[in-house]
């Protein structure tokens, strides 16, 4: 499994394609949303958590699409499936790699977000990262499964967001809620139900993905 993760990371270190596109799309989303929201308005602060999560989701969909497109080139997926490991292991490795890409991109996107939205750089940002950790994990868990499916359909790039966005609604709502509340200076205990919900989402869909992934990749 770690060999599989290392393979994905190594490809990424050599090309930096996914990372660069993730980052640029996240950044652009934040900028475009900044235009949508009046910079002087009070509402802007309230909309900030939403903007961050829209950026996360958009960039995430792009990254997930890439993760299996890479495998399609030269039929690498066939080679991957020939590995003497369980299909579930391949799924977990792919999910882990996707999760890592997205989290590393967040390390840069969040400071830019704070900068653009003129937020105070408080320790509360650590809690935002906790929400991002849980959110991105769940997003990668469902997303990796459906990226494997959508890459085999016609209209691949369009299919993934169509499948994925309705399914990750709990992650999105939870992420926005937690971010809004910790930025408003509320203690973490205040958002515990949301963090539990997101954690449960992650766990459930990691297990489901691990179980059904073989049906999504089998020839």
């Amino acid at each position, binding site marked *: 499994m770690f060999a599989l993760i290392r393979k994905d990371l190594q490809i990424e270190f050599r090309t930096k394609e996914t990372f660069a596109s993730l980052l640029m799309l996240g950044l652009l989303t934040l900028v475009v949303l900044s235009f949508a929201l009046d910079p002087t308005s009070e509402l802007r602060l309230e909309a900030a958590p939403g903007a961050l999560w829209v950026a996360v989701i958009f960039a995430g969909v792009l990254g997930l699409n890439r993760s299996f497109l890479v495998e399609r080139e030269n039929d690498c997926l066939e080679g991957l499936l020939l590995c003497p490991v369980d299909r579930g292991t391949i799924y977990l490795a792919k999910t882990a790699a996707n999760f890592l890409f997205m989290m590393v991109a967040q390390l840069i996107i969040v400071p830019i977000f704070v900068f653009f939205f003129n937020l105070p750089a408080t320790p509360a940002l650590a809690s935002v990262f906790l929400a991002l950790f849980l959110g991105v994990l769940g997003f990668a868990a*469902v997303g990796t*499964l*459906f990226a494997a*499916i959508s890459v*085999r*359909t*016609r*209209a691949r790039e369009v*299919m993934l967001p*169509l*499948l994925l*966005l*309705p*399914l990750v*609604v*709990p992650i999105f*709502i*939870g992420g926005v*809620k937690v971010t809004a509340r910790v930025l408003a200076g509320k203690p973490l205990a205040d958002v515990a*139900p*949301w963090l539990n*919900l997101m954690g*449960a*989402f992650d766990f*459930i*869909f990691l297990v*489901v993905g691990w179980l*059904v992934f073989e*049906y*999504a990749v*089998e*020839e």
Partner: protein
Amino acid sequence: MQAVRKSVETVLPWLTLVTMAVAIYMVFVKVPTDKFQGIVQRIFYFHVPLAMMTFVAFGLVAVASIFFLWRGSRFWDRLAHSAAEVGMVFCTLVLVTGPIWARPIWGTWWTWDARLTTTLILWLIYAAYLMLRTMSGSGDEGARYAAVLGIVGAIDIPIINRSVYWWRTIHPAVLITRQGGSGLGDPRMQATFAVCMVAFLLLFVWLLYVRHESGRLRDAVEDLRQQVLAPEQQR
């Protein structure tokens, strides 16, 4: 088998037609008008059975999907596909009748109430399900992909429902939840509701049967075509 099919095909449409006619008669003529909500409350007798059948349909999609991945029989795949299509029609009707009722009663077409939001997302998930079906071809692959979505979607629904419920209730905004409220006090209302439930159940079963049957015939035609074409391909 053929005899059973034949009798189902004769009895079911007529039974559905008669029950539906009785249901419509009861809704428009027999049942007393609601004291508080007035005439518009009568849409309830269609709205709620439709919603219940929607959930039955999507539950069926999940169960059939599990059986398909487990057993691999085309029957389960066709059942999942048919249930998703019929469920989609019912779900759309729920989303159409709902606002018609909500507008005069709640004063708004739409409110982001947990139940409404869940239904909307349900609709989106199964719209994606049907798109996935058309986008991935008619082969075994497409069936497996759809089954994966059918299962994941069904598992996701309770979580989505939980999240949108908290989303609205924690938020101190417009809180116009709880449908109806007045309840069905009058026995004639209860009778009408029961008849409507049966009518929509029959309609659902009939549509499902017809849809499944057409899928079966299509598969049979496809098999025959393969058999006829196979020698040519070998040449």
